[in-house]
C-alpha cells in the first residue's frame, strides 16, 4: 500500500521533475528563470533542479520564447527529452511558429524520421487579476493542431502522474498549469507513477447528467456538486485531464448512461473545446439524448482586470448549478 502524502500542485510537478531527471540524464529543463540562481521559477516549480542536476541540464534562458522553443526542439531532435517552460500561456503566442509549424509537424513532415519529445510547461488561469495578457486558456488552439498533445490537470496527483507521462511521451505535449489549482493541498500517493495521457478521470459518479470539465474548472465544478446533489440531481463529473487526444470513450459511455451533457470550461465559450465535445456527443448519441447538450464558458472578451468583471467572466459554481437545473427541467 502506498502512503498518501499531502502536497499541492507546485510540489507535485517539482517532484515529477526531480524524479524524471534523476531517472534519465537525457531529461533537460529550460526556460526563463528556471535555475536556482533565478529563484527556481516564478512559482518555485523548478526549485532545486539546477542545484541537483547542474546548470548544463537546467538552463535559465533570456526572455526569448522563439529561442527557448527552438532550443527545446533541436535538443529533442538530437535525442534529449526537454521540459521547456513558457512562463505564461499567453506568451506561447510569441513562439507559435516554433510550436505549431515545427514541434507539432516535424515528425509528420519528415515521414517519421525525426521526433520532438518536448513538454511545454505553461501557467495560466483567470482569478488572479492578471487580466488580458496573462490569463488566457488557449487549450482549444493547441488541440486544433495535429501532432501536439494538450494536458490540463486539476489535482496534485494528476499533475505529477501526467507530467511523468508527458516527459516519457515521444511527441510534443503542452502541459497547462492553472494558477487556480496550485495551492490546494491534496493526497498524492508517495509512489505516484505516470498516469496515461488521453484518459479522463470520473471524479464523481452519477446517473442524471454528465458534466465534462478540466483544470481549474474541475475545482469549481466540485464546489457545485453539493448544491446539485441537494437539488436531488445525480451528476457524473468527468475531469477530462487531457484535452487532445480526449477520452471520447469515457464521455460517450457516461452520456449514454445519463442522457444529458454539460461541458464547462474556463476558456471563452465560442469556438472553445466544448464545441468539439458537444458536437461529438450529438453525432454519436443523438437519439439517446434527453435534453440538448449545453456548454458553459467565458464570454467573448479578453479576461478583464476589475475583480467584479473577472468574477463574471469565470464560470462559477452557481452557474454550473443553474445550468444543470436547466438541463434537468
Amino acid at each position, binding site marked *: 500500500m502506498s502512503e498518501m502524502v499531502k502536497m499541492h500542485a507546485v510540489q507535485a510537478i517539482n517532484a515529477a521533475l526531480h524524479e524524471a531527471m534523476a531517472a534519465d540524464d537525457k531529461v533537460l529543463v529550460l526556460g526563463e528563470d528556471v535555475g536556482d540562481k533565478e529563484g527556481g521559477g516564478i512559482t518555485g516549480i523548478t526549485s532545486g533542479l539546477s542545484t541537483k542536476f547542474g546548470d548544463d541540464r537546467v*538552463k535559465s534562458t533570456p526572455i526569448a520564447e522563439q529561442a527557448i522553443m527552438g532550443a527545446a526542439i*533541436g*535538443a529533442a*531532435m538530437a535525442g534529449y527529452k526537454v521540459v521547456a517552460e513558457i512562463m505564461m500561456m499567453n506568451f506561447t503566442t510569441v513562439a507559435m511558429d516554433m510550436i505549431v509549424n515545427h514541434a507539432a509537424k516535424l*515528425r*509528420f513532415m*519528415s515521414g517519421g*524520421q525525426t521526433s520532438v519529445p518536448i513538454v511545454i510547461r505553461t501557467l495560466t488561469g483567470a482569478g488572479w487579476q492578471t487580466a488580458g495578457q496573462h490569463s488566457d486558456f488557449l487549450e482549444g488552439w493547441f488541440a486544433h493542431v495535429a501532432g501536439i498533445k494538450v494536458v490540463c490537470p486539476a489535482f496534485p496527483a494528476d499533475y505529477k502522474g501526467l507530467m511523468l507521462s508527458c516527459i516519457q511521451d515521444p511527441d510534443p505535449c503542452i502541459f497547462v498549469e492553472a494558477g487556480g489549482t496550485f495551492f490546494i493541498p491534496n493526497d498524492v500517493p508517495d509512489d505516484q507513477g505516470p498516469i496515461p495521457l488521453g484518459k479522463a478521470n470520473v471524479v464523481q459518479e452519477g446517473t442524471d447528467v454528465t458534466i465534462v470539465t478540466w483544470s481549474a474548472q474541475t475545482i469549481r465544478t466540485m464546489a457545485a456538486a453539493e448544491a446539485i446533489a441537494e437539488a436531488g440531481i445525480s451528476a457524473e463529473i468527468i475531469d477530462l485531464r487531457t484535452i487532445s487526444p480526449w477520452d471520447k470513450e469515457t464521455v460517450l459511455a457516461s452520456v449514454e448512461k445519463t442522457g444529458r451533457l454539460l461541458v464547462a470550461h474556463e476558456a471563452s465559450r465560442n469556438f472553445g473545446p466544448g464545441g468539439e465535445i458537444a458536437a461529438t456527443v450529438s453525432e454519436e448519441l443523438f437519439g439517446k439524448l434527453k435534453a440538448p447538450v449545453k456548454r458553459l464558458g467565458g464570454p467573448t472578451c479578453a479576461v478583464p482586470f476589475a475583480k467584479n468583471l473577472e468574477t463574471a467572466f469565470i464560470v462559477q459554481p452557481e452557474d454550473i448549478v443553474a445550468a444543470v437545473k436547466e438541463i434537468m427541467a
Partner: protein
Amino acid sequence: MAELSNAPKPASEDLVDIYRRMLRIERNEDAVLASMRRGRLTMPYYSARGQEVIPSTISHFLNDEDQICTIYRGIQDMVAKGIPLKPLWAELAGRVDGTCKGKGGAMHMTHPETGIMVTTGIVGSSMPIANGLGWAAKLDGSKRVVIAYFGDGASNIGAFHESLNMASLWKLPVIFVCANNRFAEHTRYEDGTAVDQISKRAVGYNMPGFTVDGNDPDDMFAHASAAIQRARAGEGPTLLECMTFRFRGHVIGDDDKYMTKEEKEAAMAADPLPALRARLVSEGHATEEELTNMQEKIEKEVEEARDFGLESELPSLDELRRDVFAEEIPA
C-alpha cells in the same frame, strides 16, 4: 570583404571537391527545372542558381555527424551536404520512396542520416532549432557543428536576433550562414534591411561576423574553415554573411521585374560555376578531360535519380494517419 590573417588557401583537391559539389547542385537543378517544364514535378521551386559556392565550400569542411538546418531555398544545401539524389527526387515528386515518404516535399525535407535535420518553409526558423541541436552537441561532448542556413530577409525577423543572442551567450557550436542574394522575396536588400551589412549585426551579440564574397571559393574557404574550427574548439558561434546573387527570381515562374536587367546580366556574366571550372583548368588543378568525366558521371547519377523518383509510387492514403504521433491514430 573582410580579411583574415593567415587565411588558409584551398589546395587543388579542395577546389575540385568544391567544384564537384557545385556542379552536382547545378546539374540536379537543371534536371528539376526540365521535369517541371514537362509537368512531371508540380511544386513551388525556389532556385538558388548562382549561390552554389556557399554550401559547397561549407560542406567541404563538414562530416556526416555535422548537421544543417536549412530553408525552402535549400536544395543546394542538401545536395552539397551529400543527400542521396534518389530519395531526394522521390520526395520532390511526392512519392513513397522520398526522404519523407512524400509528406514533406521540397520545402520540408529531412534526412538525418546525412545530417539534414530540418528544412523550413518559414523565413528565419532554421536558426532557433539549430541552436537546440548545437546545445545537444555540447551536452553530448561531441565536436559536431551545426549550420543554420538562411537568407538576407530572415535577418529581419525576431528569431534571428533571439538565436544569435542565445548562441553567443551559451557558446553554441552553430554557424549562422546567410546567403545574401540581395533580395528578400521581391524586396531589394536596402528597402528591407536598415544596416548595410548583416555581418555588423554580429557585434550586437558579441560574436564574430564577416561579410564574405560568397561567390569566391578562396574567401569562402578561409572564412568557413575559421568558423568551423572555432565552433569545434568550443569557442562559440560565427555569423557569415555570404554575398551572392540568385539568377532565377524568388520562385520559378516569377518574372523577376524587381531586378534590373543590368545587375542580372552582370551577375550571370560572373557566374561562379564556369568561372571555377576555367580556373581549375588554367591553374592546373584539373584537366578538361577530368572535368568532362566528372560532369558525365554526375549527369548519369542525376538521370538515374530522376527516373527512380518519378517512377516511385504515390504514398498510400493511410499515411494521412501515420507519423502524426509516434503511435498511429485510430481510424
